[in-house]
């Protein structure tokens, strides 16, 4: 979960693959024995197996058992229950409410992040060098703050009794926000959480997309300008199509990260999220570690993975199509 949580640890998205390398790579592969690349990849494969495959396998096994606290303490094998956990989860209306909420949050937050990220990237192209450097530095600071810390800071800022946000709004004449609770109404609460997620997500998107924008040939833009295209037309018909592979990739990554939303909700709701604030990740965690229904939590996680794969299949197909066009 954590591996995909943090944008800071993610590899930078590759920028449009450079085609000249491809033939040489193929030639090399034909000449050398097959085991060299395998050997070189071995440490990675071992790490992946240890850190991803093993826990995933255990989780899968667990989701078909009924593990309780006493099995955890004694180390005894929990009884097998077949598909009971899955039936229980899938027939529970609360679970589907959580799925819907997570999906809506993902769509909304990713859309806002991408639009704002692209906006900032376009702005970076227009401003002078000094301002651009200042923007990058400011965004690096945002990027460098651990999620836990930024969530804690947001929590304090929107606190009803001690928060600076209510205080600041209160200073507007005629407005009374004393003790206003930002979380009594889930819509407002989710606006706060979405703001936090988008705010933390923009630096990665803006910097990556800005890097992509530098690949847009200047003469194409000039030609568009000469042909009398408006800036909006230039954006739609020239810049966006060239950026498309990159946008697909950053959207995919954002979907993965935001779909697994955990830390922000967890911290902002004081590690006891109400029903209206449960996402798939917090719901699985609450079941598994809050109520010690480890198997139920595992089943929820397995279903989450399957749902994610369903969503991702679409993007993976898109990516292959883009590759074909290239």
């Amino acid at each position, binding site marked *: 979960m954590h591996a995909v949580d943090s944008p800071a640890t993610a590899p930078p998205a590759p920028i449009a693959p450079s085609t000249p390398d491809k033939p040489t790579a193929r030639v090399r592969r034909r000449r050398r024995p097959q085991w060299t690349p395998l050997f070189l990849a071995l440490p990675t494969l071992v790490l992946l197996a240890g850190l991803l495959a093993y826990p995933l396998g255990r989780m899968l096994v667990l989701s078909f058992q009924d593990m309780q*606290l006493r099995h955890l303490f004694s180390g005894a094998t929990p009884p097998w229950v077949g598909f009971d956990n899955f039936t229980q989860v899938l027939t529970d209306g609360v679970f589907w409410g959580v799925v819907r909420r997570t999906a809506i949050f993902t769509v909304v937050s990713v859309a806002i992040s991408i639009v704002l990220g692209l906006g900032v990237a376009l702005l970076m192209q227009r401003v002078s060098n000094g301002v651009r450097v200042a923007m990058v530095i400011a965004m690096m600071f945002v990027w460098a703050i651990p999620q836990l810390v930024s969530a804690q800071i947001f929590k304090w800022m929107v606190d009803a009794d001690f928060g600076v946000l209510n205080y600041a709004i209160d200073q507007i004449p005629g407005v009374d926000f004393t003790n206003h*609770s930002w979380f009594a109404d889930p819509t407002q609460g989710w606006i706060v959480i979405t703001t936090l997620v988008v705010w933390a997500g923009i630096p990665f998107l803006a910097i990556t997309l800005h890097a992509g924008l530098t690949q847009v040939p200047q003469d194409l833009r000039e030609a568009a300008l000469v042909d009398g295209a408006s800036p909006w037309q230039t954006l739609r018909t020239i810049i966006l199509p060239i950026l498309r592979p990159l946008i697909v990739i950053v959207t995919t990554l954002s979907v993965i990260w935001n779909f697994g939303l955990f830390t922000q909700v967890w911290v902002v709701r*004081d590690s*006891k999220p109400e029903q209206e604030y449960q996402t798939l990740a917090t719901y699985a965690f609450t079941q598994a570690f809050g109520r*010690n229904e480890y198997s139920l939590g595992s089943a929820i996680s397995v279903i989450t993975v399957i749902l994610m794969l369903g969503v991702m299949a679409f993007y993976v197909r898109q990516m292959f199509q883009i590759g074909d066009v290239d």
Partner: protein
Amino acid sequence: MRHRIAIAAALAATLLGAAACGGSDDSGANDTSAQALDGKGKTIKVWLMVDAQSSWKEVVEDANARFTAATGANVTVEYQQWANHLTKLDATLAGSDVPDVVELGNTEMPKYVFSGAFAELDKGRFENSANWLQGLAGPCELDAKTYCVPYYAGARVLIYRTDLFDAAGIKAPTSYAELTAAADALKAKNAAGSNKFAAFYMPGAYWYAAMSWVYAEGGQIAKKDGDKWTGTLADPQALAGLQKWADLVKGYSSGDVTKDESDQAAIFAQGQSAMFYGNGWEVGAAQEQRKDPNDPNSELVATKVKGKVAAAPMPGIPSFLGGSNLGVAAKSQNQPLAAEWIKYFTDTKAQEALLAKAVLPNATNLLDKAATVKGNEATALAAKSSWFVPMAEKWADVEKAAVLQQMLRDIVTGKKSVADAAAWADGEIEKTLNG
């Protein structure tokens, strides 16, 4: 009777033991097994909750010193936070390097006792064990065996601003009608000055409070029929209690209704509230706070309400008997030493030191003594009229799933009617307790 004999034996052993080691310790409870318990070179690990660190560190240190003097073993105390301690404990107990002694809240205990997390203890070896408070000792028992030792208890009282009461010409209320009358008077006198003013600060997710109102009206959370639990919050008496509590929140409180009680003393310290319903020790917490909250040794700083706060029994409302218990981990390699440490930490000497910290002792025979300590009168009285959560193995799951908090938030934010919210909570409680 068995326990009396055991205590007599322990006392007899004390005399022998005291003579043998020439100890100056007059609190009793040493026994001959101290000789067998040669702990030289060993160290036991103790998990206490953060309250011990912030409020009665010297009691812990004194018990450690006496324990080390008697057994030669060392003690490492690690302080835990309430917010995540169970998750941490679960993960730790699944391994082999476990703490020897663990503190748990009394409502959290049954599940762990049932799951085999704690070793059986010889009840007779602990001082005052014949008189342990039932609300604390009950969760320690399973099949007539004892798995943990009561540590301390807490009861909730009415905490109020003496200056505001004087200014309004009122005294601490002695009936619920007087309480609401006082709240009306305070509201009329102070509300004009500040829209933040709360005649009675009551956070919306404060379930210990709301359930006290339920029990006050003769309701209860759940009851057991045969081997099935039934949620009873939608019963007429419980509904009346919930309604009365909700009226108090809506009529006299201000602030974030989605909050629980964890920062109520700090909110009260801002000087914008006239009353709140808190633990005895919150009288102190509202008046003085650590300069650096992360450093228990930093100096105490007076708040705005210093010297203007007093406590009284909450009229007409029985208190939840909260508290903590100490258990010896079943996987501990030092079980006899761990039990020995608990003995020192819960003996009369340690308990009497705790009384001065505005918490309640673990035994009824010490409760009267508690009432004579200044500042403790209200809580000691409150403890005599108290209620406790359903004694169900899975009760802790109801707490962890925050069922009651959800119900209360739904009521105070107006999402659901009292009856609808209670019916929903009954369903959840039944599902959890019978699951």
